[in-house]
Each structure stands twice: as C-alpha cells, then as structure tokens.
C-alpha cells in the first residue's frame, strides 16, 4: 500500500511541476512526464536531505516532496486564467476526432500489446543483471537501509576497497536513489521504477511529437521507437541506460519543439529534462553540449545570449554539484581517468570509428533505426540546405554523437579495454539516440510537409 502511495506522490509531484511550467501541455503530455520528473526531483531532494544530515526516510522524503508540490501548485494557481483555460481544454468537445484514423487505433493496439508484455516481464522478474547487482540496485538497497548516502559505511567500504565495479558509487545518483525510494517504501524489487519509466517514456514521446505531428504520425514514430530490439530488451532491466535515454532524448525533442515554435514552456522542459539526464549519467553532458550549440547558433544570429547562458548554466548545474559533492566528502575518484589535454592516437580513433559505424549499421541491435534516419536525412538534405531550417534535430544528433566519441577517446582505460567499452557501454549509450533518430524520420522537412497536408484535410 505504501509503495502505491509513494509512487502516486512522485506522479503528483511531477504533475504539479509540469503544470507550473505551463498549463498548455496536453493531458497526455503531463501524464507522460509526471512520473519521470517527479521521481527525478525526489532524488534531488534525497541528496539535499543527506547534505543536511537528515536521515533519508519515508517521512522526510514525503514531507519535502509535499513542500515542493505545495510551491509548484501555488505557482500553478497563480496563473489563474491559464489554469481555467487548461481545464476547459480538457473537455472531450475539444478533441478533433477526425485526426484519429483507423491506423492510429491499430498501431495503438500493437503498442499496448508489446508494452503490456514488456511491463509484465519487467515487474515479474527481480533485478538479475550484473551491472545492477553490483551497482545501482545494490546502492539503492544500502541507502534505503542506512538512510544515508555519504555516511554509509557499507557503500564507502565497497568503494574504497575495490576497483572493479566499485565506481558505481561515483555515478550521479538518480537511478540508485530512485531504487532506494521504492525500497524505502517497502518494495521487494526496484523493477517497478524501470517499468514505470519506460511506460512514461512511451507516453511522453508520443505526446511530445503530437505537439507538431498528427496523431497517426506521432504514434507511428512511437511504435518504431518501441520496436528496437536492444532498447526494449534493456528497458525491462535495472541498468541506467533506458532511464538515461528517456531524459536525454526527450530533452532534445523538447529543445527541437522550442526551436520550431519559440514557446517558452518547451525551453523550460528541455532544461529540466537535461538536468535530470545529467543527474542520471554524467555522459548526459553530450546532449547539453548539443542543445547549447544550437542555442549558440541562434544567439549569434540574434545577438541575444540569454537562452544559451540560462540553459547551459542551469542544465549543467547537477553535474557540477555532484563533482563538488564527491570532492567535499572525499568519495575518491573514478577508476578510469580522463585525459584533459588533446592528443592524437590513430589506432584508438580508428577503433572508435569502425566500431561505432558497425554499431549504427547493426540491425540486430537497433533494427532499421539509424538506416531509416540516415535515409531521412539524405532525402531532406536538399530542403534543409535550401531553407536553412530544420537543421536543428540532425545537428543535435551528430553533435551529441561526436562529443560522446570524443569523451570515449579522451578516457584512459585502466581496467577495461576500449573494445569492451565500445561493445557494451557505447552500444547501450546509443539508446539515447534511438528516439531522436525515429523522431527525425517523422519530423524531417519532407514528412512535415506530408503531416501538414494531412492536417489540412
């Protein structure tokens, strides 16, 4: 019972925050984002509690969550007219049923079928994958049991006494604190978090695209994204990758929506999701770099650097905070060290290039994802060059990918080989690019023309 109450609280917290950003988000959009935003914020609150030496317990997390919910609901109600307007928009009369086709219904059926099977699989089997057993799930158990992160003797003992596997202690804490939250609530397994995250991702992805696409095209993109073998298989495991993909890909899509419409609500949502992305995995910085690059291009054009400054400063803040946190509490350093100075290693560069290309072309892992988006890019290249518009999504994709390759290149591998990292870590990191790639297949200039034609009918 407490588990359900706790998860409902996470949902309500996220709902109030999203509503405080804007009332104009659709109900589906709000529902999709609520859980992932709520849980993400709760993990930040847990770190705050730990910093203040307050034990992380159900009571303390609940009280702080209620406080944030109160503030966001107050902000929400302050925009009284918007609030009333948003309630009116929920009326069934406002739904344009003509846009929903038979195909939409069929695809929805296929989606529900696959997600039902995946959800069941996810919650039925407890955590069994190696990375979670030695990392995130275990850290969650420890935090829930000892009510602290930095003062946990058990966690620090594991971190200092072992090299291999122990570096999970240094990961930005969203995943293991979200697991700690459900363990605190009395859950037997942390898999509920993974199941709800992936379900929320599907809804959010559809809702995000629905802001620009007709329902049938939005749901088609969602179906193709769901039917990516390696991604759906990992979505029901406890590793961080699927959760990270949720935040980072949605951040890029919301940033794209902002570039398309210039609506502030998308910009704020992109910042929030970027923050939570980097709070999940440090590598999330590559998506912040990608979005910041587009903002820089826009800023150079207009001469207004406010958006870029705000986005970059706020977006990167959880990462900076975590680095300071590790330093202050002397929680060691990572087992792999980053080479900050530029250098050239032909063998390393060639290995990264050839293995990455192999991964992108691998249909067993990613289906037709990167092939389809490559074709979409080729087809729309003429329109992009001609109109100098719609370049944002592919540019963000390639910037993030190149920045990530640069990160992989700069790391000095002490206990693991580059080949292993490419084969396992990079393979899973590419999940973040899957939703972006399928989104581009449907929001490239050619498909947008088709979309607008259907919309006019």
């Amino acid at each position, binding site marked *: 019972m407490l588990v359900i109450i706790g998860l409902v609280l996470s949902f309500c917290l996220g709902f109030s925050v999203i509503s405080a950003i804007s009332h104009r988000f659709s109900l589906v959009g709000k529902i999709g984002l609520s859980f992932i935003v709520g849980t993400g914020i709760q993990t930040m609150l847990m770190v705050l509690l730990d910093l203040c030496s307050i034990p992380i317990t159900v009571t303390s997390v609940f009280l702080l969550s209620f406080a944030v919910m109160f503030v966001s609901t107050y902000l929400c109600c302050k925009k009284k007219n918007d609030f009333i307007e948003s309630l009116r928009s929920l009326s069934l009369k406002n739904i344009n049923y*003509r846009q929903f*086709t*038979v*195909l939409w219904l*069929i*695809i929805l059926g*296929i989606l529900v079928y*696959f997600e039902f*099977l*995946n959800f*069941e*699989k996810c919650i*039925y*089997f*407890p955590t*069994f994958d*190696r990375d979670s*057993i*030695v*990392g995130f*799930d*275990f850290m969650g*158990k*420890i935090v829930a*049991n000892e009510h602290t992160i930095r003062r946990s003797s*058990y966690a620090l*003992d*594991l971190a*200092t*006494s*072992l090299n*291999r*596997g*122990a570096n999970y202690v240094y990961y930005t804490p969203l995943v293991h604190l979200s697991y700690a939250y459900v363990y605190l609530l009395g859950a*037997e*397994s942390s898999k509920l978090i993974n199941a709800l995250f992936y379900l929320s991702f599907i809804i959010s992805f559809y809702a995000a695209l629905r802001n620009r696409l007709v329902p*049938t095209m939005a749901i*088609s993109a969602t179906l*193709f994204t769901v*039917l990516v*073998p390696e991604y*759906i*298989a990992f979505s029901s495991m406890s590793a961080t990758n699927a959760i990270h993909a949720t935040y980072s890909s949605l951040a890029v899509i919301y940033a794209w929506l902002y570039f398309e419409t210039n609506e502030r609500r998308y910009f704020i949502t992109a910042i929030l999701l970027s923050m939570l992305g980097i709070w999940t995995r440090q590598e999330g910085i590559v998506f912040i770099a990608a979005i910041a690059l587009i903002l820089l291009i826009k800023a150079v054009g207009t001469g207004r650097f406010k958006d870029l400054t705000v986005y970059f400063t706020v977006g990167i803040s959880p990462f900076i905070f975590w680095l300071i946190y590790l330093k202050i509490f002397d929680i060691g350093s990572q087992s792999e060290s980053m080479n900050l100075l530029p250098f050239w290693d032909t063998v390393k560069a060639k290995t990264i290039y050839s293995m990455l290309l192999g991964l992108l072309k691998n*249909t*067993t892992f990613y*289906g*037709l994802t990167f092939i389809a988006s490559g074709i979409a890019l080729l087809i729309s290249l003429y329109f992009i060059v001609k109109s100098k518009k719609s370049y944002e999504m592919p540019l963000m994709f390639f910037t993030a990918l190149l920045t990530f390759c640069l990160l992989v290149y700069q790391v000095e591998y002490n206990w693991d080989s580059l080949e292993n990292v490419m084969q396992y870590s990079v393979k899973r990191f590419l999940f973040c690019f899957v939703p972006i790639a399928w989104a581009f297949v449907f929001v490239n200039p050619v498909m947008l023309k088709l979309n607008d034609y*259907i919309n006019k*009918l």
Partner: protein
Amino acid sequence: MKKKTKTHQKGRQTDKKNIKPENKLLKIIVLNIAMLIVSGLILNYYMGRTEIKWIHTMLTSNYKIITQNPKATFDERLSMKLGFNYMYLNSVCRNTPDTAVILFPKRDVFLKQPTNFTDAEFGRIWISNFVYPRKAVIDEDTTGINRPITHVAIVNGWGYDKLNYQVSGSRPENTVLPVNRQN
C-alpha cells in the same frame, strides 16, 4: 491588381464554404484507406523482420513463464533467472545473523566441475548484494574488512579447513557454518 486578388481570395473562401459534408467524409474515408494500405505494407515488412520476431519471441516466452507461475514468490522468480547461485546465497542469508561476516571462496571454486552453480561474477560486491546487510569477504582478499570473520561459506566442499573445529559426520557440499564451534 488588388481587386483581382481580393476577388480571388473571396472565391477561394466561397469554395471552402461550398465543400459539402459528404465530400469531407469521403476525404477522411479515402485518407484512412490510403494510410491503411501504405502502412499495412510497411508494417507487414517491418513486423516480418528477424529482429522484430526476436522481440516478440522474447516477450511472449517470458510471458508464458509468468502465466505458468503467476503466484511465484520473489525468491522463486529470482531463482528462475539466477538458478542455484541465488538459492545458495539465499540459504546463506537464512542461516546467518544480519551482523555476520562471511568468508566466501574465489570464483573458480564456485565453477569447479562438477557444480550446481552457473557462470556468474561471484565477486565481493556481487555476493554482497544477496547477503546484505551481512558482509562478504573473498578468500585471500580481506581489504577493508575491520571485523573478524564469523561464518564460512562452504562451496563445492571448499571451506572446511577454514573452520576452527573439525566437522564430524556428514559434510554437505554447499552450506554455511560458523567459524567457531557454537554450543
């Protein structure tokens, strides 16, 4: 020129107004049918691909297990995935107090044939997850352990020589025993 444009616009507006509801309905029906045909072909090709079939098989086979064992306990469900590895570590938990510090052998002892254990990491953290809050210590690696060992995990017959007493009678292959004889 202006006049011409105005007249032209007016004409278009009148055209729009003149579209009969039946025509609109017809357009929607045609659109639905066209979409169904095009997407049907795409979906038919896509769903027939090996990787999509793999997803389907993977999910349905897991669902079959779920429907066959709907009331399986947490331990049973984890045993389905981790087999004897989990069953053994779970029995270690059940037979030791929360404060126990347990000595485990190195990985190769777990996998020495013939064995009931299946290939896994069997490192200190990996084992620790299953025996938490008890502490796991791996043989010949006592780094960071500041409490004396209280129990020895007997794995494939390994560990009897680590006890401070002789075990008389039956010697189970896999069990957990206190390091000092208990009265």
